[in-house]
């Protein structure tokens, strides 16, 4: 990646995620977002760096903390925000909310309120792609908490033995809700687990979008070439509470959070831009303003959208209606 354009795209995507999340956090406290809302603030580099390599027809499976994955894969922010506001125009037509985002049109095959299944489903998509002899790729994004779950073990093993075209992207933000990963994993080095399943495991700075981008590029290429899956462990940190409205400083300190904020992935890329000169501060500011306008419009779109019709509450339970 030598040209400016891709760098700017990464910047734009991270900024879009950040501003959407901040908007949603505000809306949550105003009661516009219903149910739980887990933001991706601090982790933007991961979805962004990985998804930059994905084609429209590649697919992504995600978790309760899935807004960033959805946007990075190409979900229109209007559809994201409208979904969280519970509107008919949302990507899941108001049926899903924050934890159940579906947009197969852009390859977002779902986020899930249950920890674990996304790993298995991505393996399944990989199975399809291999059987159908395409070079499509599937990605599972999941937290460190999922690593201790049986789905991780069974899913990675099957992907390993069958050499499925899958990226398993562990976003190790070091906590599952309030439990430190080191307390819940016998060996807290996730990347080392790759070996148990016969696949490469790579540990990265998840706050460095360029590092993520490079590693993901290699993993995607491996997958497309039929060389099988890769496990990426991206070390990161969420700088907002587990979910909006929850307390944050009983299990970690304000200092820790502030310290990690200085390692913000967006700031980091900005610094890189200014140091190496691929973008000016003005260009980045302009871009930020553009994105802010998009998010503001998306918010308005969401707020003005219709509620779903209660008479349709049981539609689509089966394929036949």
């Amino acid at each position: 990646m030598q040209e400016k354009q891709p760098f700017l795209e990464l910047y734009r995507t991270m900024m879009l995620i950040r501003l959407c999340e901040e908007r949603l956090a505000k809306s949550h406290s105003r009661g516009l977002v219903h149910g739980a809302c887990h933001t991706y603030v601090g982790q933007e580099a991961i979805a962004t760096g990985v998804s930059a390599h994905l084609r429209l027809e590649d697919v992504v499976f995600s978790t309760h903390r899935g807004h960033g994955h959805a946007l990075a894969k190409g979900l229109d922010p209007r559809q994201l925000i409208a979904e969280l506001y519970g509107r008919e125009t949302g990507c899941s037509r108001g049926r899903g909310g924050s934890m159940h985002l579906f947009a197969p049109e852009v390859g977002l095959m779902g986020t899930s309120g249950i920890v674990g299944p996304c790993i298995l489903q991505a393996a399944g998509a990989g199975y399809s792609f291999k059987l159908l002899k395409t070079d499509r790729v599937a990605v599972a994004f999941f937290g460190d908490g999922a690593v201790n779950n049986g789905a991780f073990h069974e899913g990675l093993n099957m992907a390993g033995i069958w050499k499925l075209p899958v990226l398993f992207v562990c976003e190790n933000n070091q906590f599952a809700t309030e439990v430190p990963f080191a307390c819940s994993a016998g060996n807290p080095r996730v990347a080392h687990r790759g070996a148990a399943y016969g696949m490469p495991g790579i540990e990265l700075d998840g706050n460095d979008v360029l590092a993520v981008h490079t590693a993901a590029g290699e993993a995607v290429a491996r997958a497309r070439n039929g060389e099988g899956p890769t496990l990426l462990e991206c070390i990161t940190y969420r700088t907002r509470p587990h979910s909006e409205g929850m307390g944050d400083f009983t299990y970690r300190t304000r200092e820790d959070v502030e310290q990690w904020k200085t390692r913000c992935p967006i700031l980091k890329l900005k610094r890189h831009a200014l140091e190496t000169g691929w973008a000016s501060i003005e260009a980045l500011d302009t871009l930020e303003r553009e994105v802010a306008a998009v998010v503001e419009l998306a918010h308005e779109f969401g707020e003005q959208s219709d509620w779903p019709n209660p008479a349709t509450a049981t539609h689509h339970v089966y394929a036949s209606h």
Partner: protein
Amino acid sequence: MRQLTMMKATLEALSGEMARNPAIFVLGEGIGKRGGNFNTTSGLFDFHGPQRLRDTPISERGFVGLACGAAMTGTRPVVDFMFADFVLDAAGEIINQIAKIQYMSSGRIKMPIVLRGCIGIGHAAATHHSGSYYSLYAQFPGLRVVVPSMPGDAKGLLTTALRCDDPVLFLEHREVLGLKGPVPEGDHLVEFGKASVMRQGSDVTVVALALMVHKALAACDILERDGISVELIDPRTIAPLDHDTILRSVAKTGRLLIVDEAFAPCGIGAEIAALVADVGFDELDAPIRRLNGAHTPTPYSPPLETAVVPSTEIITQAIRDLCDE
């Protein structure tokens, strides 16, 4: 018509559909070269190879979840459980994912997946190889649940399942697998939600499932000699459940017995009773009776095993008792 076992009949359906549709593949333990613990895939490996007949590790949750992702992305997995008991480890994938994704995606993602496995008490298989879980799955929206009793139906229903965009649980009673019956050649489809009237009768309606259909048939023969005319209905699919056929029959007979080997509480027998006690109430001339397997884990020892399953004698007596009400 030629007579085939249920095993052969479903193999014919699967084999025909696999030839027809290259997106179908089978996942399970020993379903590759070995051809399945119950010969469910016998001979198919040689035609289709390991990608379409995929032997799995002992990762029930894993391969059911994998099948879910596959069904979402253009293929049509058939998960072969061997025994349905093993798949409780995958209940989360079935109930929280497979059953819900069509809905959550507003119908933009389909879920063409068949989950098949063996159910039922017999062969001293004991409690980890004899459960009947159809009523469990029938509780949840988004799933289709098929419980065939006859080889011909099994072929037709499996074919329908393999062309259906909804997830289908296809549960085959172990003691029925080897029974023979007429099976149509070639393409044969049986619609979901259509019960089969196995015997026409006027005194009492009996609804039975799986192996109990066969025991109830024997009871019908015995009772016929005594002039008791039984209408015997096999729902064949319990989700969807054919309300009309059951209600029409009760309207004629005024009496209903449901015979189900599985546990009574919150079972399909309760559902059918509740249906008739509501919509068919005015037609009833007697209490609705249920006859179920004993409410206990399946014991191993043959005399205990025999004691927990409704027998032809017990069914016969239950029908007589109901006619005397």
